[in-house]
């Protein structure tokens, strides 16, 4: 589904991604762990086209999408739940969903995302900027689903959420996976990530330094202390 081959990305002069390669297979959840500032968000930004890589290849469904404008990547089937939610604050909840509707004929429409998140239905006419953090997070996920993605990029969907909502998000991810969606998940919450992932990569200083099945990481104190600060 997604192949990232030796991607190098810069912010101006600062060399952030120093050769990252990974794969996400059809229907898999791949978790990307690591401390802040290690390049996880930059990798997501490189994949969606916000910060195109300077070298390397991003191949999605067999198409080389390196350096594509974001909207073209979305049209090809990549959905984004960005870090910090980034809902459109001056738009209502309903408008946030409507502007993201893409790839008609796909499984997701307004009615269906509102069944998944009933809270958004109750708030349909409210400005997104006035929602609580948890509601904004649900809206960010719902909005990404409206693009009918085959691959979902989720950048810290549990950031700043109360523990009960973290479990809620974990359930939603498991649910989406059950629907056959492929997911690349950046997370700080280790328990949640390991609960849903099929495979785990650990990033440090712009490189992937460790890759393993989720079960193996639980017991790997060395990797956990060294790269995750646990």
């Amino acid at each position, binding site marked *: 589904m997604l192949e990232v081959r030796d991607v190098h990305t810069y912010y101006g002069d600062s060399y952030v991604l120093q050769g990252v390669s990974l794969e996400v297979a059809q229907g898999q959840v791949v978790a990307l762990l690591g401390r802040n500032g290690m390049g996880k968000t930059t990798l997501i930004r490189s994949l969606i086209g*916000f910060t195109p890589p300077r070298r390397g290849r991003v191949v999605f469904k067999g198409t080389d999408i390196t350096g594509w404008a974001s909207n073209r990547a979305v049209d090809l089937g990549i959905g984004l739940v960005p870090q910090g939610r980034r809902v459109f604050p001056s738009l209502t909840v309903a408008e946030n969903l409507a502007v993201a509707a893409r790839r008609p004929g796909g499984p997701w429409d307004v009615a269906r995302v509102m069944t998944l998140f009933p809270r958004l239905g109750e708030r349909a006419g409210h400005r997104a900027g006035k929602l609580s953090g948890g509601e904004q997070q649900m809206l960010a996920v719902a909005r990404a689903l409206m693009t009918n993605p085959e691959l979902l990029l989720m950048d810290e969907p549990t950031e700043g959420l109360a523990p009960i909502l973290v479990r809620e998000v974990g359930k939603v991810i498991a649910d989406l996976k059950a629907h056959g969606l492929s997911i690349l998940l950046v997370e700080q919450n280790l328990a949640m990530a390991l609960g849903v992932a099929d495979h785990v990569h650990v990033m440090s200083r712009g490189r992937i330094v460790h890759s393993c099945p989720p079960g193996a990481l639980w017991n790997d104190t060395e990797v956990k202390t060294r790269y995750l600060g646990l």
Partner: protein
Amino acid sequence: MDFWISQVFNGISYGALLFLLAGGLTLIFGMMRIINLTHGSYFLLGGYVGLTVIWRTGSFPLAILVGAVAIAVLGVVQWRLFLHRLAGEELGQVLTTVGFALIFQDLALVIWGGEPYTIPAPAALTGAFNTGTLYFPVYRVFMIGVAAVVAVVLWFVLERTRVGAMMRATVDDAEMAGGVGIDVRRISMGVFALGALLAAGAGVVGGAFVGVYPGADFEILPYAFVVVIVGGMGSLRGALIGSLLVGLLDNFGKALFPEFSYFTLFAPMAAILAIRPTGLFGRA
């Protein structure tokens, strides 16, 4: 009493013309944050193109249509080749657009000469409604009508359609708008074209009212910016209220204190901005 009624009417009709111009600027400058000093040139060039169409065909509606569309195309070319590369670079935008304004001014002088013209209004729009002592020129009523229709259509498109929501999403967070599949380039180009179209249409409509002459571009430009800034950046309602306010202030200033007319226009502006720096309806 008659004096006040007719001055209020005059102020509102001038405000209506300003709204046509400033409505476009509130899209380009207020929403997309492009400081476009060519906006007055669109007004003037629209007037000149309209004038030529009237000379050739005698059709006033065709003059509005061709003038507006031709200048919208010019605006798109200017945006496509220059302005979209200068996102967020105010200095570059100011220099580029003021350069274009000067180029367009000279081109207009070469093509249409230095004579002042007035676009002949169609017979149906000449004359006046007469109510005894009061006198309302039909053309001014027509301008108010056009501005009202444009205001309603713009409001509807921006607030009630999906494309309008996509424009507002782009203003909120352009990068993220791309991240949900919105073609931000196309939206920006469309907004810019619409702004130029409105300004040029205003130039044709206004050409039968204030005339078409060299210098009209730089004369009307500050008014448009004052309207947008006082009304509040990117607010359609602000542009509407701001236009009426500026139209009335300008009119009363000129009627009551002709030697202080700039003072009566700009002093209230300064006062409003001192109290509300984001303008009357601006977002913080």
